[in-house]
């Protein structure tokens, strides 16, 4: 890696000597490592080591009262081929994709408009996005249950409009609504951070060049805000995929989703090897797809 970087450094050096640039480059590299080190070490101790333990467990055997670390096998990984797992995965992914898209659709214009406000207003708007989430997670879900129940405001409203009584509670729509509610801030925050830094002159320039509003959005704003879109989508998609409390409270737990399936393995079934294998494979798949996305140049869009 070092070898490939040095020629680049010398190409850049039109003012300073190649030696000077190379030394500077190396110093920068050392500084980068030095800055990354605290978080690196922290995550190594408090994340990687525990993670290794759990991966070891995925090859162990379930017993009545725990996990026996002997009789190493890959049965837990074999079970992942069960069509049941595939159905659950498919169902959860669909739900998570829909949630992510709706969040994106609501959050993008929100974050964009917020970016056009003065700094004080922006910060205020941001805090008012977060304040609802400093109430308790369960009571927020219960409040939605009241709103969506057969006697609740939603049902009354739909009756008044003439759509007839409707109970949204215990349907997939209610689950999606609950998930969007819970994860919308996760989309707004990175989008705002990404859009707010965009140089407004670029947008003005595109408008001056007679681009329509949509064209200037499509060719200027969106590409420039892509890091925010990607970050937000990851932050919404991943927890939606693993959510289990909201689907239980608002959806009535009538179908099994990935989140509750994993929880069931660790808790009700006390089958840690299978739970660990399931999570490990899930993490590997998601990590690989994220990395592949960035490698393919998604980052430079």
């Amino acid at each position, binding site marked *: 890696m070092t070898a490939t970087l040095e020629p680049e450094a010398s190409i850049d050096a039109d003012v300073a000597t190649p030696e000077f640039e190379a030394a500077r480059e190396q110093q920068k590299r050392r500084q980068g490592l030095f800055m990354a080190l605290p978080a690196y070490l922290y995550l190594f101790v408090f994340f990687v080591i525990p993670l290794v333990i759990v991966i070891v467990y995925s090859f162990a055997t379930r017993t009545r009262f725990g996990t026996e670390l002997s009789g190493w096998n890959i049965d837990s990984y074999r079970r992942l081929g069960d069509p049941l797992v595939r159905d659950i995965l498919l169902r959860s992914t669909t739900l998570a994709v829909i949630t992510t898209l709706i969040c994106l659709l609501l959050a993008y214009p929100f974050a964009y408009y917020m970016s056009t406000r003065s700094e004080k207003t922006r910060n205020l708007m941001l805090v008012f996005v977060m304040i609802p989430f400093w109430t308790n997670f369960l009571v927020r879900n219960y409040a939605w249950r009241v709103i969506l*129940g057969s006697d609740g405001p939603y049902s009354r409203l739909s009756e008044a409009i003439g759509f007839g009584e409707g109970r949204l509670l215990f349907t997939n729509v209610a689950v999606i609504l609950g998930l969007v509610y819970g994860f919308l801030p996760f989309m707004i925050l990175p989008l705002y951070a990404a859009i707010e830094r965009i140089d407004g002159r670029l947008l003005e320039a595109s408008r001056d060049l007679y681009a329509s509003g949509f064209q200037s959005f499509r060719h200027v704003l969106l590409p420039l805000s892509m890091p925010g879109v990607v970050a937000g989508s990851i932050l919404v998609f991943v927890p939606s995929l693993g959510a289990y409390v909201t689907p239980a409270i608002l959806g*009535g737990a009538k179908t099994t989703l990935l989140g509750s399936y994993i929880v069931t393995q660790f808790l*009700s079934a006390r089958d840690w090897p299978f739970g660990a294998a399931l999570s490990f494979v899930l993490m590997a798949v998601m990590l690989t797809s994220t990395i592949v996305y960035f490698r393919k140049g998604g980052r430079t869009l």
Partner: protein
Amino acid sequence: MKTKKWLGRIGSVLAITLIAAACGSDGSESSAGECAVDEVDGDLALYNWAEYIDEEHLAAFAEEFDISATMDTYESNEVMQPKIAAGNSGYDVIVPSDYMVGILIAGEHIQELNQDLLPNLSNISEDFSNPSYDPDGKYSVPYQWGYTGLAVNTAVLGDDYPRSWDIVFGDYADDYSGQITLLDDPRETLGAALKSLGYSLNTTDQGELDEAQALISDAKDNLAAFNTDSSDELLTSGETVIAHGYSGDMFTQFLETDNPDDYAFFVPEEGGTRWIDNMAIPFDAPHPCTAHTFINWLLDAEEGATLSNWNYYGTPNEAAIDGLDEELNAFLTDPAVLVGGLDSVESIADTGDFETSYADAFTRAKG
């Protein structure tokens, strides 16, 4: 040089941690061999279900023995058990349910009680003194008990509804489609289906379990939800009319409403679950003497009555029954509750390796 040594040390500690953690827990055991009756050897750390003992009641114990008492709460046996099993939980007394006592005994994660320190054990009713999950009660002392059954809105169903699981699993349920909940719990709900089919709710026969799975799968279309956290509230708010749930919750919930008589709870004639929660002491409890003292204190007739009158569950403490609220006692002894008699109910027992089949069957039933 020095830094290197230091780094090396950190590295070796990390390695040891890793290896030790991978080898499972084998922390030091504590024992109550040296204690005397009513002796305390430190503060009490109680790990209990929420709303299961009044804070003030616990404070009264602390005051009487001049120690302090803290309580932390959990929402399921399955969250509590791995924490105790992992060791160093820091708790002196835990309150596991029946089948979980069996699991904790098998894993040697709770210690044998020193019955000499528990003179009040004589207050425990004979019904509870020799449970199947802990013969002779060597490791656990019953705390509270209740049934799992069905609650119905009699204002909607009338009085002629069948006292049977058929009202959720049979054709009867079609009339109340979308107004029924079953518990979101593999053992309880499969147990209900098994009972309805005339099998034991602790079966380890895959064929019987498959039948139960099919029964739930068929009943699913009539359900509003699988729900554990608020089946009682959904019933009294009118969202549902038939709810699978726990006796104590249902009973207190009925009393919350304007017309408690509009609701009824019963264990169907085919039978249901009788659950018993128990006090036990983790293998590495920091203060085993205090733990014994607390258990013995709560077994006192007066304290037992105070406990039940506050949480409104049944007491296994025979001496405490005279001190119970009339309302509570009437409910506990109501013959209409236990339709099939005491022989029809079972406690959930751990089925060992078959446990994963239950979890799996429930997942498949849901689809």
